[in-house]
């Protein structure tokens, strides 16, 4: 087999594995979120379909497939159809540059656990996160109904306002690691201080992590920042007029966005797959690395759900004031602190 064909085959297998894993995780998150809500609110949650309700996502998916598509008379038809794609595709495309562990060997081929090794991963993530604003905005604009319009406007303003502190918090990490490559950023956090404390960026950049996490909550439109969908005021906001599979796409896009965001937080602030103690080499080490990465990502997904069912929703003026007058200066302060304290290994 020629090397080009082999590389193509490896890439296609990786894509299949990543897509399968992400779609399964999205389905499971939809269930876990409702089960966890039940746990917090002292009720069972969905537990009828299959053991522990595990087949509930399958039932939901089938139901979405058999539902009638309703396109409103007032809708701008082509934009209306395009919007769910723009919400779903960027959220999935995040996973192209997210490394999920250390290289391992299969049949003598060294495989890196990410689809596209790239030296511009952080910029790619920022670009896609900007692109995902379009899905929400166009959905609100094209529905031809006032609740989606207001929801879309709110979402746009919120997402662009919180992109500033997010990018500035990211900048401090990029500066500390001197790279835009997620693998390099994760490897810059290897090792420990005094043999016990892991050299994760969350410790020197605790302010940056806080800002980044709050901005991520707003970017994913999760409580306490789910103003675009505030059901008490806006029905469900920008996807009020969407039905069947197109609604499911917004839904899946939101969960895929959350999973990607959790993985990114893990890579940027919690050392990715690095653990504060030595792990064996070879394929066993790669397996441990992947398990560590998956466990950290799962923790942040759980944190998303925990926050959602604990905190009440912000008011819109509070949201905008928090973004511009609290988080942005804090992110700036974090950048200055990093600028004057941090010397990345091997530089200067």
């Amino acid at each position, binding site marked *: 087999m020629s090397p080009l064909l082999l590389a193509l085959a490896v890439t296609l297998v990786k894509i299949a594995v990543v897509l399968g894993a992400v779609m399964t995780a999205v389905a499971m998150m939809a269930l876990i979120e409702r089960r966890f809500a039940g746990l917090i609110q002292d009720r069972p949650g969905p537990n009828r379909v299959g053991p522990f309700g595990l087949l509930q996502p399958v039932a939901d998916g089938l139901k979405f*497939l058999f539902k009638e598509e*309703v396109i409103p008379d007032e809708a701008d038809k082509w934009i209306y159809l395009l919007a769910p794609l723009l919400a779903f595709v960027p959220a999935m495309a995040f996973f*192209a540059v997210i490394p999920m562990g250390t290289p391992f060997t299969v049949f003598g081929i060294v495989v890196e656990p990410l689809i596209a090794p790239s030296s511009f991963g952080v910029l790619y993530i920022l670009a896609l996160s900007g692109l995902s604003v379009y899905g929400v905005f166009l959905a609100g604009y094209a*529905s031809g109904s*006032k609740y989606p319009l207001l929801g879309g406007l709110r979402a746009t303003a919120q997402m662009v306002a919180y992109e500033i502190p997010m990018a*500035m918090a990211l900048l401090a990490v990029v500066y500390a690691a001197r790279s835009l490559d997620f693998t390099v950023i994760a490897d810059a956090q290897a090792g420990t201080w005094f043999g016990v404390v892991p050299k994760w960026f969350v410790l020197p950049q605790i302010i940056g992590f806080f800002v980044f996490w709050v901005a991520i909550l707003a970017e994913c439109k999760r409580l306490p920042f789910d103003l675009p969908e505030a059901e008490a005021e806006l029905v469900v906001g920008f996807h009020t007029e969407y039905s069947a599979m197109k609604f499911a796409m917004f839904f899946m896009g939101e969960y895929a966005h959350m999973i990607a965001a959790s993985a990114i937080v893990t890579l940027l602030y919690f050392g990715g797959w690095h653990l504060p103690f030595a792990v064996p080499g070879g394929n066993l080490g790669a397996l441990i690395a992947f398990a560590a990465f998956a466990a950290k990502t799962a923790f942040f997904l759980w944190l998303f759900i925990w926050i959602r069912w604990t905190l009440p929703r912000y008011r819109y003026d509070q949201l*905008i004031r928090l973004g511009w007058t609290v988080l942005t200066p804090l992110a700036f302060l974090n950048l200055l602190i990093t600028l004057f304290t941090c010397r990345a290994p091997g530089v200067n």
Partner: protein
Amino acid sequence: MDRYIPILIFGLICCSIPLAMLAIQLFLQVRRPNPAKTEAYECGNPVKKEALAYRFSIRYLVIAILFVIFDVETVFLFPWAVSLGRLGLFGLIEMVVFLAILVVGYVYAYREGALTWA
């Protein structure tokens, strides 16, 4: 160049998933058309005017303008953060001046009340 091709392939596959789902749905869905279903959502009340005919707050636009200013700033900052090791002290001072000018703009926007919603 070949490092970018996997991203292209992945992007195309990601686009094809929702299109495939929509195509499957075309054959599976049950159609019961009804004029009431395709009206804009208004809890059953008659729709008075088009959505875009309603007024909405100008502040959404102000936030969009501010976003452009600060986002262009971060675009300049990313390459700088990566290559600061090579630029040395000159690069650091240069960027601190740039940031200081932006802080002036930020303070102006704050005093004009553009950063708060009230």
